[in-house]
């Protein structure tokens, strides 16, 4: 059985979210990408072009599965058919791990196809612990869960989000996908310090990072994945990289997707930021002297107004011939 240590010790390098618009370039040119993350649902319940393209890509690149419909936080029963489909897909494409989101996507059988926020209460934690364990038993591996972007918070929280993640990870042994852009978006939306958030992350459980662009509105930010990663998120990524000691990193670009070369260039910026992070770590040690403990810097900037854009979801985007 795969362990969390197996996942954490796997640094796949800098990856890209696999998008249909890039299929022709990837299949024809076999560009030097370290790995691809697939949106799991795009390859479930279908037997045609999507899975055949995936077969070809999985033959040449490491693949990771990232889903949006596990509904792990819902009070509905777990969808075991869906979970078994995930497992079968993993076997087919030899995905290194399976991730989804710390959220719920529907209740009473209805799927809203959105990543809805959890209340960070003791009751919700107990509920999630049981379900994450059940999923891990079925999948026979640690589940990797992503911190979502949220726009509201439920009242009556017993934990901050990092505290909730710590408790969940400790109780279940699950992995974390730390979406740095989501940390930044939530920090801005809910008025907390992103660096303090990072200080509370259970780093022993972080398997990989997500990076993406977002849209700034007058009073909040929306995780749109439709533009380059902003400077503040790169800065936060460097900080996260230092705290983690280095993890696989993936760029998501889901709307207004540019050509493959542009997307890949954006992802490869992460390499430069990893190097910068290493230099910053050295400089910090120099300033504080050997043995000084690292203290996160404040990285949350003030929101800047930008044109509004519609929120774009993760979704199936296969083009029919």
């Amino acid at each position, binding site marked *: 059985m795969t362990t969390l240590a197996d996942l954490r010790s796997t640094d796949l390098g800098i990856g890209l979210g696999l998008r249909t618009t890039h299929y022709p370039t990837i299949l024809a040119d076999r560009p030097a990408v370290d790995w691809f993350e697939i949106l799991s*649902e795009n390859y479930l319940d279908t037997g045609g072009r999507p899975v055949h393209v995936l077969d070809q890509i999985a033959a040449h690149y490491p693949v990771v599965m990232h889903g949006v419909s596990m509904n792990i936080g819902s009070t509905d029963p777990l969808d075991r058919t869906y979970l078994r489909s995930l497992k079968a897909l993993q076997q087919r494409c030899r995905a290194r791990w399976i991730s989804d989101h710390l959220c719920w996507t529907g209740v009473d059988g209805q799927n809203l*196809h959105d990543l*809805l926020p959890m209340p960070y209460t003791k009751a919700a934690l107990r509920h999630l612990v049981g379900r994450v364990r059940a999923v891990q038993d079925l999948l026979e591996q640690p589940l990797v869960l992503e911190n979502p972007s949220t726009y509201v*918070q439920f*009242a009556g929280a017993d934990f901050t989000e990092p505290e909730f993640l710590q408790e969940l990870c400790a109780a279940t042994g699950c992995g974390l996908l730390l979406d740095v852009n989501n940390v930044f978006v939530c920090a801005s*939306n809910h008025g907390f310090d992103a660096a303090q958030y990072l200080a509370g992350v259970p780093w022993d459980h972080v398997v990989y990072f997500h990076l993406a662009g977002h849209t700034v509105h*007058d009073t909040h930010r929306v995780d749109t994945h439709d533009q380059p990663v902003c400077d503040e998120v790169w800065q936060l990524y460097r900080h996260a990289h230092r705290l983690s000691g280095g993890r696989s990193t993936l760029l998501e670009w889901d709307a207004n997707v540019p050509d493959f070369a542009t997307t890949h260039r954006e992802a490869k910026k992460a390499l430069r930021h990893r190097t910068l992070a290493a230099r910053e770590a050295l400089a910090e040690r120099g300033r504080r002297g050997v043995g000084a403990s690292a203290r996160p810097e404040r990285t949350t900037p003030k929101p800047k107004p930008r044109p509004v854009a519609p929120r774009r979801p993760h*979704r199936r985007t296969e083009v*029919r011939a």
Partner: protein
Amino acid sequence: MTTTLRSLQRWFAAVVVHPGTVDDAFADRRVRRLVPGRAPQDLLVQPAAGDLATRCAVYNGGYLERLVEVLQGDFGAVQHLLGEPAFRALVARYLQRHPSRHPNLNQLGRAFPAFVRAQRTLPQRAFVAELAQLELAVSRAFDAPEFTPLAADALAAVPPARLGSIRLAANPSLQLRAFRHPVDVWYQAWKNGEPIPVPRPQRSWLAVHRHDDRVWRHRLAHEQFAVLSALVEGQPLEAALAKAPASAPVGTWFTEWGQNGWFTAVRRGRR
């Protein structure tokens, strides 16, 4: 008073899918009943900037936006025919009646043609419903399970005396449709970027299938449709061929259908 996780999720889901604004949702008695005695301000933290309604609108607005976009992808021809505002309004009503209940968005439009057919006030609804049927058939063919077409010589290997009793397993992507309008003619014109007026009723028959990962459409004669339908239903070859006139060039048909990969297995004996 405490609110259970389930009540909280039911309430928030009701706000997200509410057809009105977030303020409409907050005020809606059916929504409020889900969390008796609790106001939105009791359930959600006042945001650092802006108000709760604006924040909830990210979810409420995104819900319809996202699912309209999915169905625009699946029913592009229907949207073109109706115009975007009418299509959006139709989808909004559809989602109220047929919310997604599947992890995968490729299932979202399964009930759309039947829903369109039931819209009494929709102009040209009979044609629009058939167009939706055609587009759904394309989607279903695209997403059908994997299959291996029957080998070219498989039928030749069957002893002639037994040919009449065999049954042919259809390729799971094969979708047969009978229409009251020449709907594929309109659809092809739309795909060519040269839309034509909605045609007068005239019966037509269509096979939609996937071959080499591409979706293809074949217009059929009525007798071809009858034979194929009988085969897909699992009738023996002899009974299926009885649906066609004796003079029909069935040998040519089967050669073409075999080349299209419409059958995946020969089954002998009873079903």
